[in-house]
């Protein structure tokens, strides 16, 4: 009876656990059994590994081969255990030295030709391995860059099982032989392309400064989508910790371009036909991340928001408050981060012209009301800024000039405002106004001047208790953009107008 042992990582959502792959060879008729709660894809690993080992020129033991994945009670999914299984079998057979295996995690799927193919979740897996004190990571050659995002582990890229044997024997593989796919860079749209709409641009700037949620409301063709798409372009770069979270989620869903730390905030814009599961995350057995987690630390844009299914929209309520989502499925409870900035765009009615100066709405009044009611109160109450957009007149467009302010200039002011927030809030561990919990906002920070304006709005029933906090947060963001030490009455007034979506927002306070 000979034993071989190698290590890999089991992933349930982003939660990673080290998995010992134990192989015992000997006794009995030649047969290979795989135990330890494998899922269907993993169960097939047995046949895949046998064929791969044969075509790589190694022999599969002609004995009873028992492969155990321990801890045996943890459900395991995915194809990335192949390389660890093969390493353990070869070590048990004495075909490779087992010295390095004790201090390594192995990840990768094998092809029938003995090649090693990329898998999902390399980044979170290597992160977990380093946390557990593992010194070496053996990953598919195409994912070397992704694994190197983690500090503290020596990363070896393998393109085939021959490379695996070489690495385990202590030989070095020439890096140049492994082809790295090029890193794709997305072109970010610039606000310079948006003519006019000064109010909406200002609302976008405030939203960017404090990470507030925005709702753009207006007739078709006024630039709601243009503006929303340009929000990521004026947001500041992600911190290293945030970027690692973003990269881990991207790696988990198998997005191809995790080659370097994503410094730009992510942007997700699901179509309005999206299902609840695709928005929140879901799926059978073990839930996978959805659009809200892909937009973590970035922007989630729901264009034509009233067209989304009510259930999909309502599902946003808890993640909007908590910044994460817990998904219970048959095999596991998973939790994914989902601290996103929500941008909604909607028309006022089915024909889109209701309440638009110069527009003629052809909808019956009930249709207008029904359309507006598709965005429920609880969702709208969580939105900080409601911004109405009007069609630009030709005179206005001429006056505004052909070119607006470029994104870079606005981004500069936003970075400055964010710096002020980090400085003010670091004592409590927050970095943006939108994140500050109510109690800290009310008791720890200096009260804004002109708070009595809010009391009046509350007593008239125009503002909920949550609404008051939201207005105060907005006022802070406006003050931060202006470089004021604390919000002035004009900031509170502007914030209140922004929150209620009043038609006459006094641009930049009066």
């Amino acid at each position, binding site marked *: 009876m000979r034993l071989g042992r190698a290590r890999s990582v089991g992933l349930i959502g982003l939660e990673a656990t080290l998995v010992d792959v134990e192989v015992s060879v000997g006794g009995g*008729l*030649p047969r290979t059994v795989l135990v330890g709660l494998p899922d269907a894809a993993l169960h097939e690993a047995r046949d895949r590994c046998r064929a791969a080992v044969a075509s790589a020129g190694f022999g599969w033991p*002609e004995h009873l081969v028992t492969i155990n994945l321990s801890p045996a009670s943890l459900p395991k999914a995915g194809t990335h255990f192949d390389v660890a299984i093969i390493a353990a079998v070869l070590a048990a057979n004495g075909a490779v030295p087992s010295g390095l295996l004790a201090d390594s995690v192995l990840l990768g799927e094998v092809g029938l030709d003995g090649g090693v193919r990329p898998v999902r979740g390399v980044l979170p897996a290597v992160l977990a391995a380093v946390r557990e004190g593992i010194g070496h990571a053996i990953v598919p050659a195409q994912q070397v860059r992704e694994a190197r995002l983690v500090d503290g582990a020596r990363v070896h890229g393998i393109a085939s099982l021959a490379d695996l044997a070489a690495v385990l024997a202590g030989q070095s593989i020439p890096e140049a032989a492994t082809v790295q796919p090029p890193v794709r860079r997305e072109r970010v749209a610039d606000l310079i392309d948006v003519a006019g709409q000064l109010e909406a641009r200002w609302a976008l700037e405030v939203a960017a400064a404090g990470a507030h949620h925005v709702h753009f409301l207006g007739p078709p063709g006024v630039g709601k989508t243009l503006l929303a798409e340009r929000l990521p372009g004026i947001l500041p770069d992600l911190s290293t910790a945030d970027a690692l979270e973003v990269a881990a989620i991207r790696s988990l869903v198998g997005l191809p371009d995790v080659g370097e730390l994503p410094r730009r905030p992510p942007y997700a814009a699901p179509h309005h036909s999206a299902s609840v599961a695709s928005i929140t995350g879901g799926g059978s057995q073990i839930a996978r991340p959805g659009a809200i987690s892909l937009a973590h630390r970035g922007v989630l844009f729901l264009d034509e928001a009233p067209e989304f299914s009510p259930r999909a929209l309502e599902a946003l309520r808890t993640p909007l408050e908590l910044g994460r989502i817990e998904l219970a499925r048959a095999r596991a409870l998973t939790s994914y981060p989902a601290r996103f900035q929500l941008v909604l765009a909607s028309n006022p009615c089915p024909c889109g012209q209701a309440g638009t100066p110069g527009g003629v709405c052809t909808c019956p009044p009930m249709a207008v009301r029904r359309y507006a009611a598709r965005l429920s109160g609880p969702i709208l109450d969580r939105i900080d800024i409601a911004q109405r957009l009007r069609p630009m007149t030709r005179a206005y467009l001429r006056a505004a000039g052909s070119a607006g302010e470029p994104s870079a200039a606005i981004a500069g002011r936003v970075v400055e405002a964010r710096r002020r927030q980090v400085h003010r809030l670091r004592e409590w561990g927050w970095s943006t106004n939108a994140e500050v919990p109510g109690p800290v906002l009310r008791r720890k920070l200096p009260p804004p001047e002109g708070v009595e304006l809010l009391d009046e709005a509350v007593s008239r029933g125009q503002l909920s208790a949550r609404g008051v906090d939201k207005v105060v947060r907005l006022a802070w963001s406006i003050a931060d953009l202006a470089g004021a030490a604390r919000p002035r009455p004009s900031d509170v007034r502007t914030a209140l107008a922004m929150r209620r979506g009043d038609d006459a927002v006094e641009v930049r306070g009066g």
Partner: protein
Amino acid sequence: MDERRETGQRGESLVAAYLERRGWRVICRNWRCDAGEIDLVCCDPDGAMVVCEVKSRSGVGYGSPLEAITRDKVRRLRQLAATWAREYPETIQALRVDAFGVLWHVDGTASVVHVRGVQP
């Protein structure tokens, strides 16, 4: 067909000779009944009756010889062994099924793998 049967027969003879050299006693060869055939029954030095299944191959292109002994085949062999034991006139101390894989090499030599007490 003949060539294949010959490979099988040669394998069985080889195993019988191999076991006799080690002090086993061959009780019968190619015992048949309605349910199938037993290649070899031997009595090992400890006095146990051993029903032997011999698989011969002349190459590993289709896998090792022992891989041909599937779970169903083992189950059938155990039933055959029981049938044989009922018909055997003398008392049987112990009964077991062993598998032998015979691989014929090109130069006429062969290697034998012996698995004691196969389980389905």
